[in-house]
């Protein structure tokens, strides 16, 4: 049986585009659109240090040769509040990997869910970049 992610746990969506964050450091829904997959990839904060979390983000960016800009943190409670569900999905190199699943069909519906996630998210800029 899959482990249930606790409501209070924070999930990080790594950000590699400046235009996914507004000038006031709030997150735009563009950062959460799940295409082309049926889910949205995130990394759990639990079981990893702040530095380790940033290392995971850098590793993701390194695969695409993209500089890490920051991360959008959202709680599992907020994900469920948006009508979605966080599911554990550990990967080689990232045991804390998870997916946000349950996205509705149709672009407008997905945008709405992404807006709810973005509204609940807190942006942390990559301190080195």
């Amino acid at each position, binding site marked *: 049986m899959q482990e249930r992610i606790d409501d209070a746990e924070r999930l990080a969506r*790594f950000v590699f585009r400046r235009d996914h964050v*507004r000038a006031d450091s709030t997150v735009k829904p563009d950062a959460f659109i799940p*295409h*082309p997959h049926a889910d949205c990839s995130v990394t759990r904060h639990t079981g990893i240090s702040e530095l380790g979390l940033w290392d995971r983000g850098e590793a*993701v960016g390194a695969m695409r040769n993209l500089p890490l800009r920051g991360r959008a943190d959202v709680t599992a409670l907020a994900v469920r509040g948006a009508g979605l569900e966080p599911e554990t999905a550990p990967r080689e190199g990232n045991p804390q990997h998870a997916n946000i699943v349950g996205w509705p069909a149709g*672009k*407008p519906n997905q*945008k*709405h869910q992404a807006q709810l996630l973005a509204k609940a998210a807190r942006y942390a800029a990559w301190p080195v970049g």
Partner: protein
Amino acid sequence: MTTFAYKSTPAALSFSASREGREIDLHRRRATLRLRYSNVVGHAWLRSDLHNLANECADAGWDGYDAMPVDAGAIERALEVLDAVSAARNGVVMSVGAEADGQVTIEWHRSASWTLSVSVSGSGELHYSALLGSGKAYGTELFDASVGIPDTLRQLIGRVEAA
């Protein structure tokens, strides 16, 4: 004390050796940002941002995950949409962006609870989602440059501006 304050363009770093010079530089950067986001110059910054998106998001994976390249047709349609809308009013900030499916976004943002995001496809579909205080609205409209912005979106823009 001698003050060194080099002239600088908004995009360039300026170097000022004195406290007064650094304050001038900071004031200049803030004024530039206010101008940029005031839309006074008729979406010039947004058009520039769209052209930058076309270049920076031309390859798959531009978002660090599995994004599709931004659709060139979506860029063209988004430029037409900008031609059809007025500068945002009452403190609403407009911005553009790209989504993982290759579509381009135009956003009217007042606050976390009053915001409208429109995704523009290459075929002219406008997929929108708005948070309107305690309300919401989302759907799809078709854009025809010869007709202008669909009434539904014009009204939503107005609601965000009036909030």
